[in-house]
């Protein structure tokens, strides 16, 4: 089973462009990342620049509308994620608990939809998606 661990750092919604984690925080987090990899559960991970460097697109009536960050109404924003492969939701939660998070942080644990989760008629309509996934490359380098 695959799970997304979404890091939600409180206050990140108002972080200025160019905000960076400090050296100590980074080193501590890298140790945790390493432990995920050693256990053979880490599939992918990334940090996200703050919303002040991002944008939102909404589709009222199906027409795209673009808004630049920051987003005044946002109370929680994603700061980064881990994608892990584990045997159960309980195992995913155990890994989340081991993260060296600080007092202003929450990790949301969400299961990834697998092709086999969908009923047969939906699978048929989505046929070709797994080939698409196989063709796309993760991280072609900066």
């Amino acid at each position, binding site marked *: 089973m695959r799970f997304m661990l979404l890091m939600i750092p409180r206050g990140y919604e108002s972080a200025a462009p160019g905000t960076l*984690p400090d050296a100590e925080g980074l080193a501590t987090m890298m140790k945790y990342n390493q432990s995920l990899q050693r256990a053979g559960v880490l*599939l992918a991970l990334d*940090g996200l620049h703050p919303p002040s460097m991002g944008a939102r697109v909404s*589709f009222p009536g199906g027409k795209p509308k673009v808004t630049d960050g920051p987003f005044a109404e*946002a109370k929680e924003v994603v700061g980064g994620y881990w994608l892990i492969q584990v045997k159960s939701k309980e195992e995913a939660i155990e890994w989340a608990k081991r993260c060296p998070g600080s007092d202003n942080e929450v990790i949301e644990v969400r299961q990834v939809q697998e092709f086999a989760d969908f009923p047969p008629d939906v699978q048929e309509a989505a046929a070709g998606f797994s080939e698409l996934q196989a063709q796309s490359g993760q991280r*072609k380098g900066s």
Partner: protein
Amino acid sequence: MRVMVLVKADKESEAGALPDEKILTEMGQFNEELVKAGVMLAGEGLQPSSRGARVRFDGKKRTVIDGPFTEAKELIAGFWLWQVKSMEEAVEWLKRAPFDRTEVEIRQVFETEDFGPAMTPELREQEERLRVQSEQLSKAAKR
């Protein structure tokens, strides 16, 4: 540069409603264009938050809260990872997505050099190793 494209949840996705054939076909065509253009790096849908959990950090204390997260104003229902030349290019791609009434957030991904001196040479090397190994595992996981 890489961007993460976060698709926000709505009542339907949180209720576990499955996409119909029309939207799947349109989304399939959109995903195919992204792959052909060399933009698509990854894309996944997430199960509703009722099947999820949250872990809250307070000093050494960890509190586990089961979903659904009804008080959360914005939840994530799915995401893409795209490789693009600029935020403008990412926005242009997203405008072409077959969405109706959804809200989608685009965020720039931290690359190794963005971290500055905090990313020491040792950490940089460790990070590269991590990525190579996790990519191999990721390819195996999809089959």
